[in-house]
């Protein structure tokens, strides 16, 4: 029915335009990870193909998927093809406020003066 609330299903990487443009063939896997972060999908059957895939289905609208595929040959980047969602600040804010009206003075329950470190008790690796 028309007005049923559907949870946003978001998966995979959200990339930043300048970072993607700084990718150059010949980079090693280590360098790519430094620039782009870890790939969302690496198939167990193809180690040399990294997919920076991202899918988003907001509420009742259809799911869109974009995939930036990187191919390596003996640890050197060979080809980059496909498309990606680039980070759009306003959209991010809109998605987040769905869950949380910002109560200014309410401290997040498990947050105290601990180092941010993802809020986890095990510190930075």
């Amino acid at each position: 029915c028309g007005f049923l609330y559907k949870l946003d299903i978001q998966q995979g990487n959200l990339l930043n335009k300048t970072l993607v443009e700084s990718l150059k063939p010949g980079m090693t896997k280590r360098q790519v990870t430094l620039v782009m972060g870890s790939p969302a999908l690496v198939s167990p059957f193809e180690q040399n193909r990294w997919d920076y895939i991202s899918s988003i289905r907001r509420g009742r609208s259809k799911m869109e998927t974009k995939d930036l595929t990187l191919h390596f040959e003996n640890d050197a980047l060979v080809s980059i093809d496909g498309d990606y969602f680039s980070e759009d600040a306003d959209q991010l804010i809109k998605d987040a406020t769905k869950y949380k009206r910002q109560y200014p003075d309410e401290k997040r329950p498990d947050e105290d003066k601990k180092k941010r470190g993802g809020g986890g008790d095990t510190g930075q690796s």
Partner: protein
Amino acid sequence: LETFVVSDIRIDGLQRINAGTVFSYLPVEKGDKLTQERASQAIRALYKTGFFNDVQLARQGNILVITVQERPAIAKILIKGNKDVKEEDLMKGLKDIGLVEGEPFDRLQLDRVTQELVRQYNNRGKYNVTIKPKILNLDRNRVELNINIAEGKAAAIKHINIVGNHTYDDGTLRDEFESGTTNWTSWYSKNDQYSREKLSGDLEKLNSYYLDRGYVDFSTDSTEVSMSPDKRNMYIVASVREGEIYKVADISLSGNLILKEDDLRKLIKIQSNEIFSRNKLEKSAEAMTAVLANIGYAFAEVTPVPTVNREKREVSINFVIAPGKRVYVHRINFKGNTNTADEVIRREMRQLEGAWYSQAAIDRSKIRLQRLGYFKKVDITTPRVPGTDDQVDLNVTIEETSSGSFTFGLGYSQVQKFIASVSVSQNNLFGSGDRAALTVSQSFYEKRYDISYFNPYLTDDGISIGYDISLRKLDQSEANIAEYLSDTASFSTYLGIPISESDTVNVKLGVDKTRINTFEGATPDEIINYITLVNKGIPTPLKTFHQWNTEISWAHDTRNKFFNPTHGALLQLSAEVTLPGSTLSYYKLVGKYTQYFPITDKLTFQGSATIGYGDGYGSDKHNFGLPFYENFYAGGVADVRGFKDNTLGPSASPFDLIPQYSGYQQPLGGAFKTVATAEVIFPTPFVKDDNTTTRLSAFFDVGNVFNSNIAQNGVLRTTNNFSFSDLRASAGLSFHWQAPVGPIVINLARPIRKKPGDQTETLQFTFGAQN
């Protein structure tokens, strides 16, 4: 011991430990060449086992002879004289150091224990403590350990003095301090017990008190802690330098902003040429970090960097924003769910695996898990995934409460007097997340049989479905309502459809049959006439009403906690209307709005208003206004407190012909109800559970029930129309306790605005029964 080839190994002095064990730890075997270096290795290995006080290596021909002296085993540990530190904690402390009955005893450990105990007592302000351990040697190489403790009394803080504070006097500065001088509450609050942590915490508060009011140069030069020679009184002196008040010059943002600058600037809580306040800086930085964490930058850090201009007494601030990498959630693991299924928890999570990290979604998930009502504690930690710098796991640790309740036996409620009831209810049936309840209850005036079932997740998107079958035989008069018997049987089923994160719409379809029988001379004429009117003028003591009804209700719930929330609101609107084919056609509208907001971090304000309105509709063949058995009532434990249940509002005309009934009033209820309450909730004294199970509040209630529609000589008339002067009011204290046996509510109420003839009650309570 020059090197030689070991032909055989012999071990002397063994008692408890058998040779096999020693061989298994010994790094030397038969046939090895024993060098000096290997020998010392062997000795070290044997000492490491912790079994031996002494290990000697000797050579007889080519035989290696190891003489060992076993450490005595501890036969018994006795501790006397400990009051502050409980026995189990002491035993556990000893266990951690290795002093356990049956284990080998090491003298060195004993000194460490005594030292540790003295340090523990000093930390509690007991400086006159003396600890005397005694070791008794028993036979068979065993020892008995006696630890005698003389604790002495804790030193009390007698004098705290802050020197150099000209603008704010000692009193204001010290009221947030945890340490304080002895006063009448000290026996409980222990505020006069000195501890270094408490003091450093207090000095930090002093520091931020000044920094929050513009004193950028404020500094605590020195703090002296001293004690009287008899070690029973403590004196604390702190000397401070206030410095000047500074204003904020310009505010700039730098680093990788991610969001637009003016979005971030909206979060800054301090403006130029306002008085400098570190607290506002921190709050602004926290707000920005929170927004960045909400959109995936879990390790974002925002640091306000002040540059002080001493001449102009100004500080310009640059917020350096370091968002770090965008972070993704790798795995979501649940711990502690021995009864609840994984999916029941996972479906509440708003954060998905493989998605980017959203602190907002995580906080929302936590509230949803708490709202399920069958978890005592929900903790979420987000440790990094080793080997990556942009992935975290989400570990959700829950503590399950006994989600079911099996109450059998006696409940007592003001309304229903003694209730013998058997009720089995499970709000997490076998961990599947479904709610099921069976109630068979027999009370002074009511027989009730209900079965209800609710599945919150009929579909994965959270459409819920519920069923309710109940049979109720009710003698209304015992419930202080007019004198008649009602016998209802009803069945209803409803669907809950979430339309947003905090809004749900419920559609209910129900059928029920209500049989009313009245007693001439006891049931008020208004009711008897009404029934005769409905029965087309033929008076009858017995009347059955059939109806089909549907109800649409909308719930908007943004409360931040399940029990005792401090934020958010709960709005419930419902409209019930009977469908054609029912004996009477009427509709009932009910609206309830409750708003919570914190006054201080200890006090919460809760204001709520309820409005109910019902009336007949359609052709007058079925339209007899709102039937009396569907009337609203007011007054009672959970309504306008301080008045007997259901007694507010219009009542039947008294029977002057039957003397003993003369003063007796029979409330009829009404078709229009308005109730409003204002409550301030404060922490329950002497209870250390920070309001997770108890709730104490001061309340002010106002409300009443109006336009009761009655039949007089064949014609329908509504009496007691709404008027402000008829509103009743009361004030008092209310105590809620989620006891293991069930919710207990105790009200102490004093009616403020009442009219003669109102039946009031100062003490009202219910326990063990949902009233």
